[in-house]
């Protein structure tokens, strides 16, 4: 038990922070935080961030970063919101949106792993490019998907199991399990660790460095596109600035979850807890009687605080 805790100190740490935060919210507003509805609301909103954060975790473990996912969400969401009304086929719309997201991820991968542009610049450029294309293609106008409230694709993506549990939470659970298996048990996860930890060592030991980086970007593209479809269905609309709000939330989730900014290590569990922590802060802050302006400040604080704490932890462990 002791050895287990020592090995998973970071996860224990983030779990402790989540429970402490929750305790504060319960104390500040017991009526809201001791009843079921707010938790069901969390189950419907947190998966949007968490699904992308899982993909981002893998990218950051590989020593990379992706700033383009908000625009990947926007453009693949537009594809979904265009094909669905045009053809009436949810399957087709979903597949096209995923293909679009995967291709944009591939584009990032080729820029970074193929041409050798640093990821932060490549994906920043890609973000502007895809956002611009999205604006041009949509004329900056939102698309209503309210007509598909009772469609099978709506039930599949964001329906309520037994009338209560949001389907997106189940999707999140499934995706988290899959990502966990990939990262902890699969050679791809092993390759990600070594590529992020020491790219030269990865190359010297026969790890396909470029393919591994590229696949990480593709996976994140797919997950961002999928999350966008969930958002479109849940909100009943696609809008041109979709995705922009998730930038901070996703990074805050990943870093609060203990994934190293320096690459090479991170955990799926940590990111999940991180996403939950970030997801409850806004509701908690507002229901505790503070203005909504506080939430951004607190998100920023969470990011800065967590990366600093983990940097110190890492340094002490090295010694």
């Amino acid at each position: 038990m002791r050895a287990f805790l020592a090995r998973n100190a970071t996860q224990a740490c983030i779990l402790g922070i989540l429970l402490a935060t929750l305790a504060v919210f319960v104390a500040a507003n017991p009526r809201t935080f001791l009843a079921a509805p707010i938790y069901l609301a969390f189950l419907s909103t947190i998966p949007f961030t968490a699904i992308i954060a899982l993909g981002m975790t893998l990218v950051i473990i590989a020593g990379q970063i992706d700033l383009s996912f908000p625009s990947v969400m926007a453009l693949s969401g537009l594809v979904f919101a265009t094909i669905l009304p045009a053809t009436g086929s949810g399957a087709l719309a979903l597949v096209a949106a995923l293909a679009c997201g995967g291709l944009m991820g591939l584009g990032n991968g080729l820029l970074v792993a193929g041409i050798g542009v640093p990821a932060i610049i490549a994906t920043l450029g890609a973000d502007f490019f895809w956002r611009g294309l999205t604006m041009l293609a949509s004329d900056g106008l939102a698309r209503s998907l309210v007509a598909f409230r009772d469609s099978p694709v709506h039930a599949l993506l964001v329906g309520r199991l037994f009338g209560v549990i949001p389907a997106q939470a189940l999707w999140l659970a499934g995706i988290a399990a899959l990502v966990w298996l990939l990262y902890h048990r699969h050679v791809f996860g092993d390759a990600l660790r070594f590529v992020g930890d020491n790219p030269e060592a990865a190359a010297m030991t026969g790890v396909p460095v470029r393919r591994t980086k590229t696949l990480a970007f593709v996976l994140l593209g797919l997950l961002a596109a999928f999350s966008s479809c969930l958002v479109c269905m849940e909100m009943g609309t696609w809008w041109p600035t979709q995705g922009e709000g998730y930038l901070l939330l996703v990074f805050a989730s990943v870093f609060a979850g203990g994934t190293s900014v320096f690459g090479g290590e991170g955990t799926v569990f940590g990111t999940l807890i991180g996403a939950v922590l970030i997801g409850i802060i806004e509701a908690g802050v507002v229901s505790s009687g503070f203005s909504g302006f506080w939430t951004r400040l607190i998100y920023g604080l969470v990011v800065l605080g967590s990366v600093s704490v983990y940097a110190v932890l890492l340094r002490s462990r090295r010694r």
Partner: protein
Amino acid sequence: MNSPAPFLRLSGIAKSFGGVTALAGVDFELAAGEIVGLIGDNGAGKSTLVKILSGVYAPDAGSLTLDGKPVDFRSYDVRRARALGIEAVHQDRCLGEKQPLWRNLFVGRHRAGRLGFIDIAREKTEAMTVLRDLVGLSGNGLSPEARVAGLSGGERQGLAIGRAMHFHARVVILDEPTTALSLREVERVLSFIADLKAQRRAAVFVSHTLSHVHAVADRFVILERGRVAAMRVKDNVDLSGLCSLVQAPGAA
């Protein structure tokens, strides 16, 4: 000389980088159980040569034969080299510091099923054996979950060499294996190299520290500006002779 016939032969290896010639036609041979010291000044081409041998770079010209059979450089990379039993070892450049020991032992060639899922239990058991028997890391608290960051430089070198032995490497390329190590750690690494020889494995020992090379190598190849400037068997040269050879290879 009564040394056994070479099983590995590089001939006419040439490589240049953007017009700068790193190697201009180098021939190099290795026999089983032979330790060859590859020495020369900075920029002589030592590291380019071992990178070609280990599959990191492809040469512009030249050929490699293994057991008399030609190896096609077009399909030769690190993965292929390792599969053929040629493996480079470097304390900092071939290990992932933040990763547990067992992952470091198997990186690039995990015991995985067809779908790519790793047999973790088996790898950890195997890792314990390697750490205990080949690397000589012991003591309570030794765990395949320990991280490389906690090992000393000599232990890291031992881990990398143990890894090569565990996967039956026939040729171990040691690139500056004793740099930045304490005296005691150097002794340890040199004894690892002696173990390689005892197991009839060949090694290429690249180093600037001639006393270390002289202590364990059977033969010395001195590179100078991309060419083999001199070659000596250990019996024919002492340490000071080796020093003057490196300083003025042409004069010898």
